[in-house]
């Protein structure tokens, strides 16, 4: 196990990778009046963790698994196309690559020895979970810890956006995150186990509204969050 501080550091919303600029689809869900209060936010977080949370955590774990491999470049390239195939909405593919680029910028300076050149996605940047997987490996996190940082990030981004978008009491929103802690840990364990499977069998849990919300959001001229 890595120094516990490194897990906290990678999972921290203050890590300079721009996570605070994203609402994880919440801004569009609020605008569609599908999330209006604490109860609907709780349901949103639970659904997001079980879908995008599990998929992102699994791909972070799979990239972590690929990190020490001799054929790392080929494995990461395959993970990249597999994640594209799980991300039907072009807006979500773009967001994942934009967040990957931001994480990569931070990682290149903080851990200059990481083989980032093996990451695919030259055009739009690498998918965020793949960068996170390499960072987790470089920081000495194990696979489950790396998956945990990914799963945790998918719910905390949306939760703190909920405070800003709906004016909710941050104490109550954090109580939701406490309720989700067990599910978040279980998601990380499931993701770490799933990462052993062949790339085509990795989880592909879909959320139709996440795709629809992301495409609506991408057409807005004025928005508080980048996604």
């Amino acid at each position, binding site marked *: 196990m890595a120094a516990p501080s490194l897990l906290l550091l990678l999972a921290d919303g203050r890590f300079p990778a721009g996570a605070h600029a994203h609402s994880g689809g919440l801004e569009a869900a609020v605008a569609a009046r599908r999330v209006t209060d604490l109860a*609907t936010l709780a349901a949103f977080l639970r659904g997001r963790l*079980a879908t995008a949370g599990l998929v992102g955590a699994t791909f972070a774990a799979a990239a972590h698994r690929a990190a020490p491999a001799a054929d790392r470049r080929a494995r990461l390239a395959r993970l990249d196309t597999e994640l*594209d*195939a799980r991300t*039907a909405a072009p807006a979500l593919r773009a967001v994942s690559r934009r967040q990957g680029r931001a994480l990569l910028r931070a990682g290149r300076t903080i851990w200059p020895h990481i083989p980032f050149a093996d990451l695919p996605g030259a055009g739009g940047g690498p998918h965020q979970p793949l960068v996170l997987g390499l960072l987790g490996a470089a920081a000495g996190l194990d696979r489950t810890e790396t998956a945990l940082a990914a799963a945790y990030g998918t719910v905390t981004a949306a939760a703190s956006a909920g405070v800003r978008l709906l004016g909710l009491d941050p104490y109550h929103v954090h109580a939701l995150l406490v309720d989700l802690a067990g599910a978040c840990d279980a998601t990380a364990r499931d993701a770490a186990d799933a990462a052993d499977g062949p790339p085509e069998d990795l989880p592909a*849990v879909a959320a*139709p*509204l996440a795709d629809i919300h992301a495409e609506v959001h991408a057409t807005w001229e004025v928005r508080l969050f980048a996604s």
Partner: protein
Amino acid sequence: MRAAARLVARADGRGGTTLVELRGETPLLLRQVPTRRGGVTVYVVGGAAGPLAGDDLRLHIEVGAGAAVRVHTVAASVALPGRPDATSRMLVRAVVAAGAALHWLPEQLVAAAGCAHVAESRISVADGGALSWRDELVCGRYGEEPGDAVVDTVVDHGGRPLLRQSLAVGPDAPGWAGPAVLGGAPATGSLLVLDPSRPAEPPLVTAGGTVARLPLAGGPATLWTATAPDAHTLRRHLTPPEAPLATA
């Protein structure tokens, strides 16, 4: 109940399609019906209720170069509970060659209360092949909460991943009815159109934010994804454009 069915189509050399193999067993019976245009149309005729938990149904479809096949089902299938702790499975494997077309346009899958059902599709389309593939799921019969159902669709195009999508509803799928996944909509589904003769169209959201048109990354393919208040509305959103392929 276990059943396996096979459908193999080839070009007949005169611009049409011939079925070189068409066999099924109850409850997966296959019937060819006359078609006005080229290509063949086959209906899957449910020969029994269900699927019931414990059932294992497999359908293999092969469409050879130059052939065109359209598959429908005569009625919705209603996944029902069966043996305790058992799951019902329906696996469709399809292989579509270059210059071939497969249109899989079945009726809806209804996940009844207490069901445990997995609908798996594994589709491989060669470069230059065409595909329309519709998955529709209705969560529960009227006024009923659904059991557990997973609709898992895996499509490769030219040996590369095109679509991986697994939609889970029911008590084992946290948050499935909530605002991140279906937002309380009882019907949902998608229509994939892979057509090498037409570029994918740009993204678009319609029907008051319930339907999205999504160009995929891995090929000339578009996915329509929809949520709907009922099965009829869903079908309206997921009806492919008329005669989308020259060979059909």
